[in-house]
């Protein structure tokens, strides 16, 4: 469905991404796995067309997808964003619902799904980190893009909340949307992702299901953490 090929990005002299390439299948959850500083956020922003790259190409259904057209297909939910801080969560949702012509029922369902209802009337600057994360995810669900990129979607959640949100993401993926998640918590990634792209020092070290990566890393019973350490 989506092929990323030879993405290279320099920040001045520093190489941030080196010929990164992988593909994403329709309806799957692909985990972009890597430690802090591996280049996950840079890669997601480059895929979304929000960061110019020095070289590389994206194809969508085998058609070139130039940067200025990415927003027709891909929506990126950045990490560390607290948008429209002086407005209420309800107002932010209303804004996105208006833009994407979502009905009241659709919005209500999304609000229930992500568990935002208790804080709808609160200003965004007063939301906890977890509720702010739910709000960002809800905004993403209100869009109509077939591919959602999420940067650290479980950051700010406790164990139970993370489990709940994983279930939500699985339901969304089973509904036909493709999710590309950047996750540094390998245990979370192992539970929610169908496939993984392992990124370290700006380079892809392996792409595949956990079974495929185990085989490549020669760790038949290893978990994702073992596999990642073996391959990077």
């Amino acid at each position: 469905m989506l092929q990323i090929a030879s993405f290279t990005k320099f920040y001045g002299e520093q190489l941030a991404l080196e010929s990164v390439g992988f593909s994403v299948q329709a309806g799957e959850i692909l985990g972009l796995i890597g430690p802090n500083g591996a280049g996950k956020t840079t890669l997601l922003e480059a895929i979304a067309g929000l960061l110019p790259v020095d070289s590389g190409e994206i194809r969508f259904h085998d058609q070139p997808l130039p940067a200025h057209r990415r927003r027709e297909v891909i929506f990126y939910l950045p990490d560390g964003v607290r948008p429209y801080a002086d407005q209420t969560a309800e107002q932010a949702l209303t804004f996105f619902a208006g833009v994407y012509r979502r009905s009241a029922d659709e919005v209500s369902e999304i609000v229930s799904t992500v568990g935002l209802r208790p804080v709808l009337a609160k200003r965004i600057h007063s939301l906890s980190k977890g509720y702010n994360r739910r709000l960002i995810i809800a905004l993403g669900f209100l869009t109509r893009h077939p591919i959602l990129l999420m940067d650290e979607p479980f950051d700010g959640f406790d164990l139970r909340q993370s489990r709940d949100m994983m279930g939500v993401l699985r339901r969304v993926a089973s509904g036909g949307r493709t999710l590309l998640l950047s996750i540094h918590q390998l245990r979370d990634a192992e539970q929610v992702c169908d496939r993984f792209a392992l990124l370290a020092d700006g380079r892809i070290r392996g792409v595949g299901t956990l079974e495929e990566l185990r085989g490549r890393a020669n760790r038949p019973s290893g978990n994702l953490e073992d596999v990642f350490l073996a391959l990077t």
Partner: protein
Amino acid sequence: MPLPETSWARSAPVWPLFVKELREITGGRALWTLLLIACPLVGYSFFQAMSLYGEASAAAANSPVLAASLSPLDGILVPTFGSFYVAVTLLFPFVAIRVLGEEKQSGALRLLVQLPYRTVTLVGVKLAAVFFAWLLCAIPVLSSILAWWIVGGHLSSAETLTLFLGHLLYGLLIGAVALFAASLTENSATAAIVTLAFTIGSWVLDFTIAGRPGWLEWFAHLSLTQVIRTFEQGLLSVGLIAGVAVAICGFAALAAIWLPPGVAIGRKLVRSALCVSAAAAVLLPVSQFKTSIDVTEDRRNSFAVADANQLAKLAEPLTIAVHLAAEDPRYIDLQRNVLAKLERAMPHVSIRVATARQTFASSAGDEAYGEIEYRYGARSDTTRSTSPSEILPLIYGLANVSPPAPIPSAEYPGYPLVTDGAFVLLWFLAVLPILVVLAWWRSRRLPSNSRTFLKEVIMNSGTRALLIAAVAVVLLLLPAIAAPVFKVDLSGETAGAEPKALVPVVGIWRIETEAGKPVLAVDGRQWKEGQSSAGIADKARALYGERYAEFLDRVQAYAYYPYVVAKDVDDFKNGEISVRFEGLSGRIDQGAGILFNLKPNGDYLTIRANCLENNLVLWKFEKGKRSSVEWVRNTPTSSRQWHDLKVRIAGNKVEGYLDGKLYLQHTLPTPVSGKIGLWSKADSYMHFDDFAATVSE
């Protein structure tokens, strides 16, 4: 395979985006702080302007010449808008920057640019929000116009709207610059510094090097302050408006270029260079576009009509070489009184300041200094005069044409007004700031829990309250601007004295009281036919200025019917004139009439009711001779009762109403045009009240 169905991306509604921008701009402190600062700033300027205008008006009470120099544009509007200009220059950038700066700082910009809008749409909507914010910020200055109108001050719709347009364009320009700065920089503080460097730098530029010779003068023209100055002079310059519009669009386009984070810097620089080049390519021809409309009532930017017509016919180029330093007061006089008007009147005028590099101080010893050479065709002449009365005949001489015969036109009467402005301070220092604080407080209130989701009110209640206030101010102002109203207020008049608001020409007119309320009385009981009012010569001069003599002759020759004239209504052509009257006594007559179409030669028309005859008559007076035009009988008009009399005029159509009922309709051979007043007859002893006129365009 094509991209998935993305029709939603092409037809995303703009309204939610606009509402979001409004919430952003009203959610911050900057807007409310500006409003709170603007209230006393504008209010005190307005109060001071009213005080000074009142003092000048008091001094002009017995001097028509001094009164004619009193223009509300110069005396009230420009100083009041001037303080608003200061607030906009210093504080409005902080309001405008917020619509983009907050999103950049919070990271929300990365969400915004992914929404299904073109970047131009995003910037356009933000600029629309800035326009809305400017309108809210303009509430203090709009309320000052309303206050001026309420106290009976004169407002010229053309002058007021032109000045308003100038400040609106200036505000939008500041907003566009602020948007560009916010798109260029990483945070709001830096954007504010960039914008203030632009606005204050431009301000400093204006008062430090304006009037200097050479390239400094050209450089001073780039100052943003220059944008407003032309509008303050009452000039609607097509070239200037187009130029500012291009500049606004240019800065907005630059903001759109620098907004998207996914574009390489090099590409943005190239696009910016193209944008600046395109704007310059448009600005260059636009700046050559000299057409402008003089919207001032006193035609201060134009020669007399006859001269303007004659000059427009001079097809050959007129070249003027000025041997004066730019800062020389004579040059400033010449520029204002002659050169600027010539450029507007003649098709081909070129002006060369021959001593452009010379300063006033360095001109000593130059014998040619002070000379102005005029060359038309092959002929030339030199003068040192800066007065149009000497220069125009010189130009006619060079062109070999006769000076034109003057075309009679109404003199600018001036609009003196003495009023107590204390209530204004109460409004601007207490009431309006409290309203602003209340609106701010309401805007900070969280939405009610009782509301259901997606039934949220489009805008927060504070914005709505202020918006309603703004709309109310505009609605109240509209009739003031669009339909000038003349109304005689007798509350400040002295019983027993002649009315101040009206000029008695024939008969005995004085203020009396009825049920404790001042009314206007005409008392024919002691009046002798043929007797004009006391001090008629001065009154005639007050009404018709230098052309009073003919009017005075006619009045003195044919003073058969008492009448008063409204001095503040110069030329009534279309609209309604109304008055209430009561017949008290009179054995020959108890007549009450509305006088209109009063000409400088003393001719006029009147529609009058009569309590003794129960009829309504349209009379015509020419050379003192009265003749009936239309006569309607059986119009019940009892004595000792108040009645409503109204005349409606539309061109040459006249309608007469008594007590709200249309009785009389007539079509005159020529359209109505002239002063208005009240009329009576013989021994009538009548009371009048609520004399008012509404002008319709």
